[in-house]
């Protein structure tokens, strides 16, 4: 019997920060497939997972954000989808041991339904393969993150729910004049209604244009549903200085704002692009300390 979302979250729960930039610091090249490192550089992926556990993450994710068959195909790795996911789940579970929960990450396929590049049936099959591989390794939940299109998120959610695990469904709200809609124009209220209807156990927002804009988005999601809310904003947009991206927001400033997110109703908080274990340690201090 899987645990329910209520068993898993008694109160505010600290998640992890970004993985891609951490893997790059360990040698992942630009354009290289991060998920493939679950097979080729498991030790380095585990080092990232461990750094978040040590920083105080109560929930860590897995290095499987792009490990769906459609996205892996662009790296010529479609046939290794199941192995990459299984290995990613095992790596995070080893790092978490009994100190943190593991929620496995599933991201978009990079194909657009509206352009006819894929269809719902294909999406369901692709996410079913990924969700089952992850669930088979004993993760505590699944997180569908960084989605912009409800029509892509729905089949992913259906496939994830079929494993019996609790499922978090998150979208990116960064478009429109108020930066409060998804790229496809979906509002927080519309997303909440659709995701509740589709059976999500928790919903939320991740990535985006920084944490400040996600405080009102969080409040609007809170008003629209009683489900636990998951908020993992990024540390603002990067500036490029001498060919390297630099995020200006400090861990302390970010952590201060996560308190506002909790006040606005977030139950799970963490970071996306530009956040590091230092950010997580600062959030632990701000929220639990």
């Amino acid at each position, binding site marked *: 019997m899987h645990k329910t979302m209520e068993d898993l979250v008694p109160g505010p729960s600290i998640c992890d920060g970004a993985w891609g930039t951490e893997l*790059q610091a360990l040698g992942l*090249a*630009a*354009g290289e497939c991060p998920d493939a490192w679950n097979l080729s550089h498991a030790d380095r992926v585990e080092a990232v997972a461990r750094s978040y556990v040590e920083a105080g993450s109560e929930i860590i994710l897995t290095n499987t954000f792009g490990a769906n068959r459609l996205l892996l195909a*662009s*790296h010529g790795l479609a046939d290794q989808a199941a192995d990459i996911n299984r290995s990613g789940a095992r790596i995070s579970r080893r790092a978490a041991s009994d100190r943190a929960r593991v929620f496995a990450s599933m991201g978009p396929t*990079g194909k*657009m339904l*509206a*352009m006819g*590049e894929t269809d719902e049936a294909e999406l369901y099959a692709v996410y079913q393969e990924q969700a089952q591989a992850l669930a088979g390794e004993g993760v505590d939940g699944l997180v569908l993150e960084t989605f912009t299109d409800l029509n892509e998120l729905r089949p992913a959610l259906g496939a994830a729910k079929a494993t019996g695990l609790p499922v978090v469904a998150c979208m990116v709200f960064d*478009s*429109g*004049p*108020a930066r409060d*809609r998804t*790229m*496809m*124009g979906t509002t927080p209220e519309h997303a909440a209604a659709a995701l509740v209807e589709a059976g999500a156990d928790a919903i939320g927002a991740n990535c985006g244009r920084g944490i400040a804009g996600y405080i009102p988005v969080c409040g609007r999601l809170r008003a629209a549903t009683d489900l636990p809310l998951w908020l993992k904003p990024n540390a603002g*947009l*990067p500036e*490029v200085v001498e*060919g390297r*991206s630099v995020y200006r927001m400090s861990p302390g400033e970010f952590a201060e704002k996560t308190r506002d997110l909790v006040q606005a109703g977030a139950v799970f908080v963490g970071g996306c692009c530009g956040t590091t274990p230092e950010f997580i340690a600062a959030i632990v201090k701000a929220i639990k300390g």
Partner: protein
Amino acid sequence: MYDFAKFREAVLTGDAAAAVSLTRQALDGGVEPVDLISQGISPAMNEVGRLFEEGEYFVPELLISARATKAVFEILRPLLAKKGVQSAGRIVLGTVQGDLHDIGKNLVAAMLEGGGFEVTDLGINVAPERFIAAARDTQAQIIGLSALLTTTMPAMKTAIDAFREAGIRGRVKVMIGGAPITRSYAESIGADGYGENAAVSVDLARQLIGA
């Protein structure tokens, strides 16, 4: 007198079937293809861009309007060619080397095709030499570079440097775009134009070639 307003409405609402049948009506009634473009398609697509900027329209609305105009251009293009009228311009597009993201680039391609441009889409992970070869083969006036990642942005500069070394930089304008790109970045690497979103790409391309 042909009802251009009705035609523009069909484009604005992305009703491709209506846009196509109104195009046939126009042509049967003696409307010149160039007039259908200047009084129908262009103002309608400008309005689509304005609605996008104002947050009335989002990506799905952009796409269906672009699709409707693309269907109209398929009818008009042979007629225009017969009269010796050139397309709006020739553009080679691609996501730069090391970057595998194509959603933004595909949106730009759809908008440009809807704007009457001849688009050669080289796909993702495109090496500078492929841009150069395609620009030569198609006699392109513009090369469009896309990147989603901060880590692959530097490949835009590499590409522009390669265009210069290959001696084609004087003949092509370079426009760039993508989530992490800013105007100041575009200026710093010597690009001719930067588009904040797909909706502005047609205007930007027209400006670059003085059309």
